[in-house]
């Protein structure tokens, strides 16, 4: 079980309120990702749930019982830290066994669980080494191993992949997703990388300055961003946001269209411009287009390798049904 509920939770450091009153329900077994730019309070929120920070007002309920004043160890949550926070003077085995040892479990049971965790995470080959002798990805696995042996109600991940190189990050992303499928335990995952959020989450919570901007499944957020912030944050490359005359034609203050929803055409088209930078990825080509009279730069994705280069004239046809409209407050117009 691992249902977590935040009710009117706030957090202040001195006079500065970093999290204004906030309500959130995380269902049992759900993979929830907190995503937002750095300093948006997502890590603070995670630490509040973990109990490493005291909440200023409000309540946290875990599985229906009030956990607001419960010490971290008794909340039944396990956390994986950004720096992994492995104990450097203990072997991998002792690191993983540490929470069980603290729980005064008997040695036979500890060995059984550690071996099981090592099996799941392929740690067996370096179980007697120390963390200092491991690579980043291996340390990450040990940190996860230390979390899973406790059989917690929920896992908390604090930007666990940000210290890994790009290739390893993609691999670990898959492993964590698979682990979630296997264990079916609630997971809360904090990241600033919207790609991680989109690929892993059952539910994404987009945060800005301590405020929840939108909660929903990855595709809900992609298809119907509630405001311009979410529209700009979710999706890669970013959505093009256009204001002014062109937006007024659609009865909106701002219109947004994703780069993949603008087609490059031979001639005609609704918009014209000149190609600035062209990023050829082989499978796709991203054009950054200037002089459209709409916005400073317009980003467009073309499928395959389109042979337009810097300075070329380009004709664009946005798909009318993919245009998102926002009002003066930045909120979505249905």
């Amino acid at each position, binding site marked *: 079980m691992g249902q977590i509920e935040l009710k009117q939770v706030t957090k202040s450091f001195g006079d500065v309120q970093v999290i204004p009153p906030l309500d959130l329900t995380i269902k049992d077994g759900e993979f929830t990702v907190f995503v937002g730019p750095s300093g948006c309070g997502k890590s603070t929120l995670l630490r509040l749930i973990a109990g*490493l920070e005291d909440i200023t007002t409000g309540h946290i309920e875990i599985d229906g019982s009030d956990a607001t004043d419960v010490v*971290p160890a008794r909340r039944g949550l396990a*956390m994986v*830290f950004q720096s992994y926070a492995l*104990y450097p003077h203990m072997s991998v085995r002792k690191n993983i066994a*540490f929470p069980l040892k603290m729980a005064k479990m008997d040695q036979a049971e500890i060995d059984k669980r550690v071996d099981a965790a090592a099996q799941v995470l392929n740690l067996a080959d370096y179980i007697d080494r120390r963390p200092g002798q491991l690579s980043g990805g291996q340390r990450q696995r040990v940190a996860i191993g230390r979390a899973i042996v406790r059989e917690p109600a929920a896992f908390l991940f604090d930007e666990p992949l940000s210290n890994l190189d790009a290739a390893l990050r993609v691999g670990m992303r898959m492993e964590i997703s698979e682990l979630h499928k296997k264990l079916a335990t609630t997971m809360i995952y904090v990241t600033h990388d919207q790609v991680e959020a989109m690929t892993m989450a059952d539910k994404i919570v987009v945060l800005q300055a301590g405020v929840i901007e939108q909660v929903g499944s990855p595709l809900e957020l992609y298809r119907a961003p509630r405001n311009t912030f979410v529209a700009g944050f979710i999706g890669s490359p970013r959505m093009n946001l256009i204001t002014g005359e062109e937006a007024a034609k659609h009865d909106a203050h701002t219109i947004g269209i994703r780069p993949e929803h603008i087609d490059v055409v031979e001639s005609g088209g609704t918009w014209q411009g000149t190609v600035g930078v062209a990023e050829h990825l082989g499978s796709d080509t991203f054009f950054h287009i200037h002089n459209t009279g709409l916005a400073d730069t317009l980003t467009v994705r073309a499928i395959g390798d389109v042979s337009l280069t810097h300075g070329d004239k380009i004709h664009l046809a946005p798909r009318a049904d993919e245009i998102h409209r926002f009002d003066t407050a930045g909120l979505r117009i249905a």
Partner: protein
Amino acid sequence: MATKASRSAARLMMAPAVILLLGWMLVPLTMTLWFSFRTYLPLRGGDQGWTGFDNYVRFVTSSSFWPAVSTTLIIVAGVLAITIALGVLLAILLDQPMWGQGVVRILVIAPFFVMPTVSALVWKNIFMDPTNGLFAHLWRFFGADPVSWLSNAATPSIILIVSWQWLPFATLILLTAIQSLDSEQLEAAEMDGASPLARFFYITLPHLSRAITIVLLIQTIFLLAIFAEIFVTTGGAFGTRTLSYLIFQRVLESQNIGLGSAGGVYAIILANIVAIFLMRIVGKNLDT
């Protein structure tokens, strides 16, 4: 320093420092060895020629030799135990955010700036004096008989004085070590269900092991040679005669330079035995 020219230039530049340091060590060492094999009584006939190992035999067979060795080791061990135990606790205390942290830290370091002679005299006259000392007043306030610290509990008193001097050093080194402890490790241990005491023994103390090793080694080197504290308090009486004090007495009070030099050579050997011992015990902490 890649080319031949720059390498020889570097050697040339370093030479004065190396020669000075070598001279500083080798000349006294050679002189000590030289005198230890001679009968040299400055006030009773001066240098009277070679005597072989006579001085060495006389020094060890003297009834004060083994007591001096054991006193030396007791004082060193006592001071090490007190400074490291209290040093760890003080370092943890000073690491907590508190009001007036800067001032408190300077106050804690202050004893280190007081000269050994001065601090020993302060302890002797202001705290430990059996009639006018602060301890005597305190004892009388509770109706007890004042303790004659430096005659009835001389070795513990010396240990106390020397510990007071060296505690700041230990605290300072351990404080910097504690500040380098990753706070996420402590938080992880907290999440893992470790009590504050368990966090101290499983996380903080192992993290400090390297710093403790350094404190242990450096302090041992200096503590084997403490002299001023004994000289101005008990003058070597009441069982506080350490090896270095015994050598001093042989050379200056008995006016026997040959015998004192032989003692000096024994002191070198003792220091090396202790050093090897310590390196064995704690050396592995420096590797990892």
